[in-house]
């Protein structure tokens, strides 16, 4: 599995980039497989770390996506409306989901680094 070193990771398998961009990990997309719809959050939505922020639909099931940190949604990925499979094919690139304006930078530091996430997923 691909676990980029420059990202932080939540136990619930979301990644967070330094600029606030969030997506799900390669491990998570592999577990879900065949993503067919991403129900993105509304821009402006305010969430607390650990809250359900949006839903990813695979062929088999709907899965909750959690906010890795607290903040406000400032952008969502328009490309996922026509190409939800980006979540599978490019989870750290074209498959990004939304961008948060962080409420508390300390929450980012509390997330796992790549080595810890690799260990947590048995990589």
């Amino acid at each position: 599995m691909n676990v980029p070193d420059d990202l932080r990771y939540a136990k619930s398998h979301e990644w967070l980039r330094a600029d606030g961009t969030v997506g799900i990990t390669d491990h998570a997309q592999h577990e879900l497989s065949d993503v067919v719809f991403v129900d993105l959050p509304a821009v402006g939505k305010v969430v607390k770390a650990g809250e359900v922020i949006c839903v990813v639909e695979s062929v088999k099931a709907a899965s909750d996506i959690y906010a890795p940190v607290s903040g406000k949604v400032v952008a969502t990925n328009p490309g996922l409306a026509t190409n939800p499979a980006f979540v599978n094919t490019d989870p750290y690139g074209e498959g990004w989901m939304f961008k948060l304006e962080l409420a508390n930078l300390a929450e980012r530091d509390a997330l796992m680094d790549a080595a810890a996430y690799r260990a947590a997923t048995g990589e």
Partner: protein
Amino acid sequence: MSDSADLKRTPLHAEHVRLGGKMIGFGGWDMPVQYTGIMDEHHAVRKALGVFDISHMGQFFAKGADAAAWLNAMLTNNVNKLAVGHGQYTLMLNERGGVIDDLIIYRIADTEWLLVVNAAKIDEDFAWLNPRVPSGVALENRSDEFFGLAVQGPRAAEWFGKFTGGKTAPARNGIVQIEVGGVPLFLGRTGYTGEDGFEVFGPAADAVKVLGAVLAAGAEFGIKPCGLGARDTLRMEMCYPLNGNDLSPERTPIEAGVGFFVDLEKGDFTGRAVLAEQKAAGVKERLTAFKMIGATPPPRSHYAIWKDGAQIGETCSGGLSPSLGCGIGLAYLPVEFAKPGTAIEIDIRGRRFPAQVEKKPLHRGGTAG
């Protein structure tokens, strides 16, 4: 993730893991939901060939001169229509006409019958039937003795020739008993996908060996191991009801749209009075197929259905149709809203999305005869 410790395993469990199957709990069994992906496996079955482990399904054997009369009193279809080597889809009802289980019954000898029942219903079915067995009939639950494989797809007939060394395949709904590689097998020409195909039952101890032979014979036809995920999308496109989702003890076969498999003329059977009345007076609700309009999340079970600002029902089955590329589902709807073309709305996480009632089946052009 569910705890797999309490789940039963089929004789092919280790093979699934070896072949890369992702295991999930289903009806008390630890089963592969997919290997490479549901989409992939779905299309393999629609275009070429796939093989499913159906060892979790149950096998009952009924024997005796009076077995036919008894089975006709227990089941909705008419077993007297079956010659030896033929089978039919049928339903077992409670006294209220509600569905306990749907199953395939084969006449494997003049006075011997094979019933293939749903995995999650083996104990319940046997507990219902066993106390009702009259003298002169022997009923056995031999589910643990058998493995089962469903080989499904437009290339199934070619596969059969290769697998059996050129034996004659049974016609649709027929069954043959033959030895392949020294293993005695039942091969019934039926399935749950809408494509041509066979269900293979044999001794559990030979399951791994037979799966190997099935895959080897299917290699040139592009056979893929398939999981329960594709099994569900394939059957949903065909609008085949799934017991527990679309069939229930509270719904009759007439309401479920499988009245074709009910013979009201054959004499009395459990639930008949209710069905006869429904047939005469009409039903209030009917299991109806729908598809989503435009880009929407796929519907799932138990989503509310709306029409003109009022809730008119909820989804039973739902998901994405890989063949149609949109969300589809089945729901009991009042008959006035069950007409194809009727616009409805599905509530998905608090938002209503447009959908339309469709004629069954949702997928056309399958190779099942």
